[in-house]
């Protein structure tokens, strides 16, 4: 069983009356709420937390892409992955990922991911999200009527740009390039493992199953609501006659570990409420641009991932309700171990994205929870999928071939 430490990088100073005074945390969120001087400290705290998790033995550290979003301060996830590539040595860099439909031309993605794979010594996981409607259609202006076709073409172009050793031309519907020839090329051959973060699109299951990609279901609704989607994926794999492998599936879960259940509630739950109440406050008109979801997905009755959460979700629920309904995995180490084992077995996943920094949680609390998870929970779950081989983790260079980055030193006064 593998564990990745993920940070959404929320802005922690949204005001108490945010829900009343603002219609959305995303797309048209008021930029005057953002203080870049605080932002300086926040970015560094968040990156420190990712490095801290790497030291504690998590398998990967994860970043992702959002735009015009006060709970996801990584419009350029590759920048974050780049600093992590230099400041860590033996964890996967889970770039989950770059919204490949947004890059024009998408050879940019092939180039930047190849750079990251080379800098990190072959530790990159390449995430190819479609991206939410808020990010792709509203904030970035990509046309929802053609987003999925563009995604598909960009995917095909990036794959070929990595794999084809010769210069080639690309005459696509959305991209026309006379000379495709990226430098550098990735260390991992033919390319870094590809993970597809999905919201609730049925097409994503088939895409992952057909291509042997990892399906990563990202939601904030917790594992009990995630069951239907994860089952849907496993079923498609089975229907295609492919073998079940838990490592082909990943799930994101918000987790709190404290010394006691009482501490988890009293000290930590306020930060989850900040997240549910302020960070998931999305104007429903931005949840789902016309054409963003296919007719099949609409008919399958699946809620757009954030719109659904925003509409119902954990809002106004008590600590106990949030834990019972799976929005939060929370409690003392024994209880969290038990909850995680249940989650891992029912969803049949070999990778979990532990969302341990939640909302406006201060760094010290997050470090404590992360340490408890690493020391008292993770070791007791490691064995769960013994016997299955993980084909979806990076194949890094051996330690002997990894470069050693120079330590940071302050300026020497001469």
């Amino acid at each position: 069983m593998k564990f990745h430490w993920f940070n959404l990088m929320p802005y922690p100073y949204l005001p108490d009356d945010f829900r009343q005074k603002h219609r959305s945390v995303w797309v048209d969120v008021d930029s005057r709420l953002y203080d870049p001087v605080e932002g300086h400290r926040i970015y560094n705290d968040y990156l420190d937390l990712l490095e801290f998790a790497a030291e504690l033995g998590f398998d990967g550290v994860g970043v992702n892409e959002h735009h015009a979003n006060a709970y996801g301060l990584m419009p350029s996830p590759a920048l974050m992955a780049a600093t992590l590539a230099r400041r860590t040595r033996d964890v996967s860099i889970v770039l989950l990922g770059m919204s490949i439909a947004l890059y024009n031309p998408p050879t940019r993605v092939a180039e930047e991911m190849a750079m990251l794979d080379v800098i990190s010594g072959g530790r990159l996981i390449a995430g190819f999200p479609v991206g939410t409607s808020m990010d792709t259609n509203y904030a970035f202006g990509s046309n929802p009527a053609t987003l999925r076709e563009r995604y598909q073409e960009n995917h095909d172009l990036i794959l070929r740009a990595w794999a084809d050793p010769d210069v080639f031309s690309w005459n696509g519907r959305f991209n026309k390039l006379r000379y495709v020839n990226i430098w550098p090329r990735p260390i991992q051959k033919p390319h870094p493992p590809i993970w597809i973060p999905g919201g609730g699109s049925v097409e994503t299951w088939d895409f992952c199953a057909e291509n042997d990609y990892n399906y990563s279901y990202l939601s904030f609704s917790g594992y009990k609501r995630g069951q239907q989607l994860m089952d849907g994926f496993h079923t498609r794999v089975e229907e295609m006659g492919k073998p079940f492998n838990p490592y082909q599936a990943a799930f994101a879960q918000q987790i709190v570990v404290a010394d006691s259940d009482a501490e988890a509630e009293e000290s930590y739950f306020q930060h989850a409420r900040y997240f549910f109440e302020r960070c998931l406050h999305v104007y429903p008109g931005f949840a789902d641009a016309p054409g963003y979801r296919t007719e099949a997905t609409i008919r399958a009755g699946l809620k757009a991932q954030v719109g659904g959460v925003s509409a119902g979700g954990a809002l106004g629920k008590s600590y106990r309700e949030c834990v019972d309904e799976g929005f939060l995995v929370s409690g003392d180490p024994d209880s969290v171990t038990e909850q995680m084992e249940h989650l891992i077995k029912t969803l049949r996943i070999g990778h979990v994205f532990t969302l341990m920094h939640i909302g406006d949680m201060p760094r010290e609390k997050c470090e404590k929870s992360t340490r408890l998870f690493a020391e008292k929970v993770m070791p007791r779950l490691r064995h769960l999928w013994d016997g299955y081989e993980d084909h979806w983790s990076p194949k890094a260079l051996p330690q002997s071939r990894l470069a050693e980055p120079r330590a940071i030193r302050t300026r020497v006064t001469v």
Partner: protein
Amino acid sequence: MEVEIKSVTLRPGSPPVQYYRAGQGEPLLYLHHIAGMQGWEPAMEELSKRFDVIAPYHPGWGPSGGLDEVDNGLDLVLHYTDFLDAVGVGSAYVLGHSLGAWIAAELAAIMPQRVRRLVLAAPVGIWDESAGGEDPFAQPPMAATAVLFADPARRQSLVLKDGAADPLENYVQEMKDLKAAAKFLWPLPDTGVAKRLSRVSAPTLVVTAERDRFIPPAYGAIWQSRIGGATRASLDDAGHLANLEHPAEFARVAGAFFSN
């Protein structure tokens, strides 16, 4: 009057165009708004008393397929040129509404011999920073077209038929129609038609609706100023879908201009 939907195929292998046709008189091509048609509508019925009304679903809207085959205004102009040929009409009065007004204006600019007189109702296709207009694609999902009415409550009776329409089916259809509209109008409704409007030679009437939140009335003067000799009319107590809110008045204004 019940009018049966008809179907015509423009090219071998292309998805058929679904359309209505009824009435007596000179041909009138009716090009619908961003959210499609509610079947044979009362405004069409009214116009059909004096004209041979031909009302097709644009490719990708309603039961018409073929969105993949049209990428821009020129494709749509050629589509409608072929359509007029297929239904045996040389030139027509053209009533374009909303996105349909954009297509009508392109047709008049590029194929002037096919357009005898032109009515552009709540025309879409020019974005003006100061005139602005609400985003029709950023609306609460289950009430996506409410913004298109002067009184959003009218959507309940006019689109949802006071509960007779299945809300999920209606939602799926609205998303499909608006997706097709988004293909041409995302992220801003600027189609570049402005630079071609000086080519329009057909007598033209620009109609705006007083309470249109998508295409505010200020756009009336902008369109009028770019089309030589164009005149203007305005509809009271109507939003973008004035054809549904006040069908008789909508038909009267257009019909009077064509009969002129």
